């Protein structure tokens, strides 16, 4: 079912998350669901992406807490004010991020949901545990 829609016309989600061990599995899952995904590590990177006309972002999916000049709340406020056609979603916890990704997958209809969002949450928890193990 996937890949029938031209890549350029697939809705694009901008994932803004400063923890790579959360950003990576969320972005990977959304891609599996058929979305195009741009990854930003902070709000400044997100603003850089949003300024590029060739990249049409449908949804800004931001972590509430972000390192850098702007947190997720402020970024979403900026998007509401400056890009009113762009949807914003905020995730406060990894579990919430996995849930939101699951909801976006169901809305997407580009492809069947490849697997339950609980698996994403499970994977994030395991990835985060590797950091505790080695620090």
């Amino acid at each position: 079912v996937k890949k029938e829609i031209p890549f350029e016309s697939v809705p694009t989600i901008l994932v803004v998350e400063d923890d790579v061990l959360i950003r990576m599995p969320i972005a990977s899952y959304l891609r599996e669901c058929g979305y195009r995904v741009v990854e930003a590590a902070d709000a400044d990177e997100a603003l850089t992406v949003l300024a590029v006309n060739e990249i049409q972002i449908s949804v800004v999916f931001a972590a509430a807490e972000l390192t850098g000049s702007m947190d997720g709340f402020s970024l979403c406020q900026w998007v509401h004010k400056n890009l009113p056609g762009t949807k914003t979603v905020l995730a406060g916890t990894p579990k919430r991020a996995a849930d939101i990704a699951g909801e976006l997958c169901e809305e997407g209809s580009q492809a069947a949901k490849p697997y339950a969002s609980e698996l994403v949450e499970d994977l994030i928890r395991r990835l985060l545990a590797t950091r505790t193990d080695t620090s």
Partner: protein
Amino acid sequence: MTSSVRAVAAREAYIQQVLFDSEEAPKHTILVVEDDVLIRHHIADQLRLAGFGAIEADNADEALTILIAKTHIDLVITDIRLPGDTNGADLIRWIRRRAPEIKTVVVSAYLDPYWDLPVDAVFTKPIRIDALLRRLRELLPPAEQAGPNGR
């Protein structure tokens, strides 16, 4: 083995499969380390369109975090100048020492001080994607494709 242990093992295997080898045929996974979000996105997107799996890291610390998490990585593409305490040259030396099976490719505008880095390929910016893809296909031939348990 009890059934619950088997269930946990199956779930583990499933997570590995779905997140790191999600297509029908296992594909090679490349870690792209670049602090310019537009260049990183461009390279990673082109890799995905070419059939590779691509993971993105904003700097060398993120790359090390991913490598330490034992995410399956076949090849690392990195810039040399990166923000933070660790630069791309440090990252390559770490990989050579700790994960020598991972191939390394440098994409940088600044190479002179690092001419002796032990890497598999070097590209200067601005990068030509077709040349990069050609080299990656040489470094990661399809016949050698393997999943997380295959190497």
